[in-house]
């Protein structure tokens, strides 16, 4: 049967709406931001002019930008390592136990469903420096002599934020690693046991190669998500105390909606995008290499 040599418009109708959404809501804004980043655009004042790369120059010579960048790196690396560790170990544990698998999985998935505002409020209440459950418990148990101020003490606030983010993000890693683990054929382990392989050898030679690519993808997606995350820190500490937890998205927000300098704020967000692009290219290079090795 030969195909008709007529232009087939119908297939384009199917993908057109999504292309329009991507074009207007994702591609256009990028170029729009790129343009505004080279202007003196203000949130309220209508007049603005083109100033070339002056905004970028101003941002890249601002000490607070580098502080925010370092805070972002710390926030991302700390959260990522914790989420991967907890997510991975719980997935392995659930995969190993024989009873209550489903119960554990269901309970542990709960944090993932939390809206960011409820994550913020619930933890702010649990850690409240006056009537919070945890500070009072620590005092009653004699572990602390005074009520610890988890969210305002500059020596604890960053660790606290990262732990909250681990609590929230580990379930997603767990669910994905667990389903990758379940795709590994059982007989491979049985064969290895007959050959006398230790549990560690089985993990190293069977488990790791099977789930490497999935975990790699997870790391990329999580890195981007955590780096871009605005809600959690903004709602819990607002970047404080004394701008200590001000990451790049919060720095950009304060510049755009606090001091109302949208042009300069756009320059910050474009730099953020470029950095993430660079990071993902490196990651995807590594994953592509793994995939080649597998074949």
């Amino acid at each position, binding site marked *: 049967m030969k195909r008709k040599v007529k232009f*087939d418009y*119908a297939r384009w109708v*199917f*993908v*057109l*709406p*999504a292309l329009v*959404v*991507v074009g207007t*809501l*994702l591609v256009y*804004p*990028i170029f*729009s931001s790129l343009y505004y980043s080279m202007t003196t655009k203000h*949130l309220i004042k209508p007049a603005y002019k083109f100033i070339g790369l002056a905004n970028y120059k101003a941002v890249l010579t601002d000490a607070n930008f580098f502080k925010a960048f370092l805070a972002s790196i710390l926030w991302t690396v700390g959260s990522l390592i914790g989420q991967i560790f907890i997510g991975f170990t*719980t997935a392995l*544990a*659930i995969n*190993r*136990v024989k009873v*209550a698998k489903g119960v*554990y999985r269901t309970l*542990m998935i*709960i*944090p993932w469903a*939390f*809206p*960011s*505002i*409820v994550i913020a*409020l*619930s*933890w702010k*209440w*649990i850690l*409240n420096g006056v*009537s919070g*459950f945890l500070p*009072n*418990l620590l005092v*009653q148990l004699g572990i602390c002599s005074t009520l610890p101020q988890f969210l305002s003490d500059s020596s604890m606030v960053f660790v606290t934020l990262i732990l909250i983010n681990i*609590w929230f993000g580990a*379930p997603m890693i767990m669910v*994905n690693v667990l389903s*990758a683990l379940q795709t590994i054929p059982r007989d491979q382990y049985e064969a290895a046991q007959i050959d006398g392989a230790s549990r560690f050898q089985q993990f190293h030679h069977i488990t790791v190669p099977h789930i490497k*690519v*999935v975990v790699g993808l997870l790391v990329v997606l999580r890195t*981007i*998500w955590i780096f*871009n995350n*605005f809600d959690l820190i903004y709602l819990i500490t607002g970047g404080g105390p004394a701008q200590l937890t001000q990451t790049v998205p919060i720095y*950009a927000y304060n510049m*755009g*909606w606090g001091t109302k300098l*949208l042009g300069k704020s*756009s320059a910050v*967000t474009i730099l*953020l*995008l470029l950095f993430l*692009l660079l990071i993902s290219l490196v990651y995807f290079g590594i994953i592509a290499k793994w995939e080649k090795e597998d074949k």
Partner: protein
Amino acid sequence: MGKVKDKIGNGLCHVYLIILSVIALFPLVWVILSSVKSDGELTSDPTRFLPKSFTFDNFIHVIDDLKFATNIGNSLIIALATTIIAIVISCMSAYGIVRFFPRLGNIMSKALVATYLFPPILLAIPYSLVMATLGLTNTRLGLVIVYLSFSVPYAVWMLVGFFKTVPIGIEEAARVDGANKFTCFIKIVLPLVAPGIVATGIYTFINAWNEFLYALILINNTKKMTVAVALRSLSGAEILDWGDMMAASVLVVIPSIIFFFIIQNKITGGLSEGSVK
């Protein structure tokens, strides 16, 4: 020897999982318990677990005096509208990608995943400017449009996985019988993928219901606020009433969790299936 070692290993796994389950569950339990305690009890006895007396005062106060029901209504309308529009658009294009663009399709879905890179804070600036120009600031419509930016790419990505499972033979048989592309799509393909569409829809709904940043930037009128932004503005008050905050939190978090439980078995394999191909 091996057996004993195995048993100890299993026991340790259970201990580890129990501890982590408690940590995972605790904030939800604490929010619910705090929401039914009286204000006096919240501050006088911070580590007491169960309430001395149950009270629904916090809920009544939140709904009657703080008009939280209006915000819940806004969030419901916005999340539902986003879900319906996003699912219609995404079903069409996911099917289009799978069936009609065998080669281009892979690039298309990769490009969609790449949009995950775009920082929401970057997009927020042009969104606020465009919505102001169009007069859509402080409207639910404006927020629904903006929400399509993250819901459509994600839904297409999820749905492509489901549509790939439909064997092409079924469609070819229908086409031979004279059905055109659209009839074939609606009458034959959609029903087969219905469970996947429902799961994707629920996930889209949860994400729209939970969204915060765009709602913060586009809405400043209390009557138009979504639950997330309304709660944020309530918690900005000088003297914070934690009982009220916890009652409102219960109303916001419970729908998310129920929906999440419904689809928990569908959202599992997303990444691993996507990467196997």
